[in-house]
């Protein structure tokens, strides 16, 4: 029976070590030997080298998060951004509600009204980030490239509402110049011009 047990073949071998000193003198001699030969620094050699590189040669491998952040892909899908028109600064959203319709977790809602200039005004716009799965459909369906995903991935907050309202997501008017187009799904393709059939104009 015992032969059928699959017991591994144990190829243990003894390494040759100096006999452990037993006398107090003997122990003292070993400590002295190890210290003076600086075996510790042999082990720390790589560490010191990298430390030197990081501190003095600018080859740091970590970032000082939250003081520093790594750049992320422009197509990263984090908290939404509402874009403005570059010329007028007016928000791009026309309140068509397509994002609301396509949202698969049903987390977008908007209130619109007929304003004094006979236009559709977006009175309020919210995304329930408790439910949002950041699928990107809203950005893809938006006909005005008004809603896009941004790079703001830190979604811890005292209240979820903190970044779910229209004004929170809207590009601040003073940062209009820094507003960048989103190159992800829903953006204009690089060869868009080639695909357009021109409509004749009578002007």
């Amino acid at each position, binding site marked *: 029976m015992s032969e059928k047990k699959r017991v591994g073949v144990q190829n243990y071998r003894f390494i040759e070590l100096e006999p452990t000193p037993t006398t107090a003198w003997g122990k003292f001699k070993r400590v002295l030997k190890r210290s003076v030969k600086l075996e510790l620094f042999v082990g720390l050699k790589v560490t010191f080298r990298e430390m030197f590189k990081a501190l003095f040669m600018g080859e740091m491998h970590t970032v000082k998060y939250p003081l520093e952040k790594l750049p992320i892909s422009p197509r990263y899908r984090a908290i939404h951004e509402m874009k403005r028109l570059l010329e007028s600064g007016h928000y791009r959203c*026309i309140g068509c509600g*397509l994002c609301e319709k396509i949202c698969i977790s049903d987390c977008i809602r908007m*209130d619109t*009204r007929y304003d004094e200039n006979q236009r559709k*005004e977006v009175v*309020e716009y919210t995304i329930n980030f408790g439910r949002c799965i950041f699928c990107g459909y809203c950005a893809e369906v938006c006909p005005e490239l008004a809603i896009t995903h941004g790079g703001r991935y830190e979604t811890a907050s005292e209240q979820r509402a903190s970044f779910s309202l229209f004004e929170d997501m809207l590009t601040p008017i003073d940062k209009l110049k820094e507003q960048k187009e989103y190159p992800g799904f829903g953006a204009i393709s690089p060869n868009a011009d080639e695909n357009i059939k021109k409509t*004749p104009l*009578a002007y």
Partner: protein
Amino acid sequence: MSKEITITIDGIECKAKEGEYILNIARANGIFIPAICYLTRCSPTLACRLCLVEADGKRVYACNAKAKDGMNIVTQTEEILEERRAIMEVYDVNHPLQCGVCDQHGECELQNYTLEMEVDEQHYAIADTKRETKNWSSVLHYDAGLCIVCERCVTVCKDMIGDSALKTGPRGGDKLDKSYKETMPKDAYAMWNKLQKSIIVPSNGTEYTNCSDCGECTAVCPVGALTERDFIYKANPWELREVPSACAHCSSACHLYYETRFTSIDDPSEKIFRIKNEFHYQSLCGAGRFGYDYENRNVKKDPNALKRAVEAIKKAKTIRFNSMITNEEALMLQTLKEKFGIKLVNKEVKPFQNFLKVYGKAKGQMLYSNSFKDMSSSDFIVSVGAKLRNDNPAARYLFNNIQKINKGAGFYFHPVGDTLVPTFGKSVSVFNHKVGDEEYVMLLLLDLFADKEKLPSEIKEKLASFKEKRVKKVKEKVMKEVVEKVVDKESGEEKEVKKKVPSFEEKEVEYEANLLVEKLGGDVENFNEEFEKALKKKEDFALIVGEDFYFHPKAANLAKLVALFEETTDFKVAFIPPKSNALGVALICDLDENEEGFVVGYNEPGDFKISALGDGDFDIPAMNQQEGTTTNMNKRVVPLNAALDYEGYELNDIMNELGLGKNLTIDWTEALPVEKGYQVAKFDDLPNYFANDMSEHRGYVLANMPVDKEEVIIEEFSESKLEGQIAYRCNPQRQFNDFTDKAHQIFEPFALYVSPEKAKELGEFVKVEFENGEGLELPVEVDERLSGDIVEVPDFKAEMDVYSLFGKNRYAQVKITKV
């Protein structure tokens, strides 16, 4: 009548009636022919030209081409497809590319057909014209920039509604480039040419429509050009949940969809955003379309209120209610009467119930013979005792539709002058008779239409007494021969030429004068000729009987006369039940005349008030918050669905406390009285839709149960004793009850409605005193379409108890003093 034919459309054999339009036959058989401008039940306008088909190799428009036996129709050929594509391209020229914000976005026919015709390229262009957005009335909004001038609004307003408040006006656009004429498909060019010249404007020449604000034009608009002002940019059509139901306001109980959605970001509760209807099959009125938000809001279950309500019912001697009630609730009230002997008082319905009883005994059946739906094929319609414009929009639309589409004629008998009815058609004769002469109206109708041999002798004698030989002067056209001298220009010769010149000579002619016509305010001299002309080619006759007949001192006699009229003519006869579910209440409840003791009011004032208006001691759901059925004027039992949530108690809960209840309110639907013509049908099994062939699948039709027939003895006629200032109990056009009044888009106030002439006399605020000494202080409102001296007092507010002021008559003698 018309014979059955068979035609072939795209290889499919279709059975149809001769003379039907090809488009309607195709639709009935599920074959798709595109069309934007055509509305079923209205006349073809030929504005869009999309319905182009080939019939036996010839190009025709399916909307106005009548089918002939054995016709072979092809709906798609290469040429036709090219034509249709060009038409859609033209429609897209200069159409704003702002679909995203448009209210029609998602249910837009322009979007749909542009995709259907695979338009992905534009070949045509023209400079755009500035077209202003306008508010036509308190409810209508017109964005001319989006308008494709299909003229559906114009057509429906003229052919169905009868207001004819819209027309096409000049657009001021550029002329089309002439080169298009050669290069474009023919029909597309013709359509564009017309489109480029026109735009829709109010027909009265002003900026504002003077109409009944029914909003049907907004319903039929295929694009977002015409919308309800309240709905603009509030919600997108595809976010809305469609709840098929029926309108609760008048006895027509029209099919409609409540469209609901969460109220806003802050308020997740459901709210009705608008009403939609199947405009190809049934048109709505202003009350139906705009009077939807009358729900009983924020009601929670209050056990104490329930306890008090049960106590009140136990104590009650009388339950006072009106017609805003479902069949099921009416049946519950009837059960209470049977168990506890509580009197049921319904002032709106009691006279109607009495009228039906007398009519039934005379006719041998419980209900009037026909439905208003049957009458849509009629070509001669008579309305008696109904203030057509105010009483029932469906009856008015029918009257108008018959004039416009069936090339019909009509008689309108009513004491109150109305300037709209005569505009329905050239062959409409209006008789503004004296109040109380309704019996003579029936007598005249018997004289004109009845088979004289079947009439009882006393009627015959009476008729003979109204005949007289008279002489009238007639201008006659006589051709006279005149000799003229003419100088020939070339030869200079003078010639005598004989010519025939018409001249008019006065001549005296003897004719048989019908004194009844004179008595009823008709033109007795020319009546005979006009009547003969009106009757030409007419074969399908209809009679509408209205509320004046039920609320009449001689109502019983009138009921017998109507029954006699039906017996002796081939008229289709239908009654207008006075209010919402009046017919249902009349059939289900055994009503009492007078109230006594402790009164429980059901949407009515009382010692204890059960109310869906939110102002009572016990809350019940309003008609848009509960399931149930209502019995409409077409004798149909139609289902109502709950559009909004309701969390409070219902009448059924009181019934349960009393040990009489059922599990759910809709369990009462099966228990509706079979002996009155109802069916044992489960609520959930009732259908509620129209099919493509225009057939109505809504609930079921009541059986017209036989009644023991009694001999008809017509009583002596009487003359009205009303003198001086007369008031008429009549609501403004969009008000029917407290619920329409609660709706935020219905603005007509509780006021004295008078004609413009009368308003000058009365000033702004008056006191109306009735014969019994009671009075009402009312502001004066001008109804532009009213004429004459009679003033109208509305009854839509239950608390004003206008029914008691008028008693069992719709007319009352009043004294009006300025305040």
